[in-house]
């Protein structure tokens, strides 16, 4: 398969939340989301309850995929930053470590310049964490699947989901 399964552990999850929590304050943003390139929401901080986070994640990934397709057509590898300006709220979308998408929603209490600056710093930290995560998953995979939650599931477990 082309991509290994993305696995998230408690330790890295907390580290990620710390970084995006700090970014939220420093960039004066309303909400920040981290989304997998396949459209799965990884985490979110700020006023997340006001938004349909699942839809947001899926559409963001679709957006990145579409602009990535455009980039290739004109001979670019990807467009690493997208900016959408609204009447009140704006979206700053960037690719972190080639694999995950960082979405920052902000209004006129912040500015594009500030967001860009802070995002750049946080992106480096996040890249490091995701790299660590990848190595960790690979190591665990090599060691075998003893702690994998699905290794022991039975047909009954699966059937029960649909009962």
């Amino acid at each position: 398969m082309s991509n290994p399964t993305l696995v998230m552990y408690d330790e890295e999850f907390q580290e990620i939340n710390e970084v995006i929590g700090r970014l939220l304050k420093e960039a004066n943003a309303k909400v920040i989301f981290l989304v997998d390139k396949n459209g799965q929401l990884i985490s979110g901080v700020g006023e997340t309850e006001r938004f349909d986070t699942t839809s947001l994640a899926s559409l963001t990934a679709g957006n990145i995929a579409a602009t990535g397709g455009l980039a290739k057509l004109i001979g670019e590898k990807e467009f690493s930053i997208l900016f959408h300006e609204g009447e009140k709220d704006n979206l700053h979308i960037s690719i972190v470590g080639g694999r995950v998408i960082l979405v920052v929603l902000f209004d006129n209490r912040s500015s594009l310049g500030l967001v860009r600056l802070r995002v750049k710093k946080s992106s480096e930290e996040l890249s490091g964490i995701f790299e660590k995560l990848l190595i960790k998953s690979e190591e665990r995979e090599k060691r075998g699947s003893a702690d994998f939650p699905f290794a022991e599931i039975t047909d009954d477990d699966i059937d029960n989901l649909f009962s």
Partner: protein
Amino acid sequence: MSFINYASREINCKIVYYGPGLCGKTTNLQFIYQKTAAEAKGKMISLATETERTLFFDFLPLSLGEIRGFKTRFHLYTVPGQVFYDASRKLILKGVDGVVFVADSQDERIDANIESLENLRINLKEQGYDLDKLPYIVQYNKRDLPGVMSVKELHSELNPTNVPEFEACATTGEGVFETLKAIAKLILIDLKKGK
């Protein structure tokens, strides 16, 4: 590519409904959306043209319940079926965990079915997937219409590898949940043994 989150104890998987234009991919998702309890589903998103043809994708998040303490979520996507949207179709296949091929059972659509199936194989290959190794189901849709091909004929044209197949009528919902259950099950079994 599924996403396993130990921190929030969730497993997310992606299912893509593929098939020729107007075969009923969106209708499959609409029926699932209508018949699923509010707490088990998210909002259905359709990026469609003014004439309700899928432009980019439809998206429906479903939450099936827990397995071994892990919330099991399935994200259902459709692709735009029309031939000229091929660039968009490729994008939606990224990170797919399982594929449902929705075939139009009408006699005059057999060439479109075959072409779409070949296109699926090629597009998957470009992403590094092999259809024969992925959880994969075939659905023969529109069984209620007059002048449809027999399942035996459809099988020989569209299902040479003998994957599970279902007859359906997506507008009334016949066979829709059977198809979904079958692909979800294959994905979970794949997750189990793939590790």
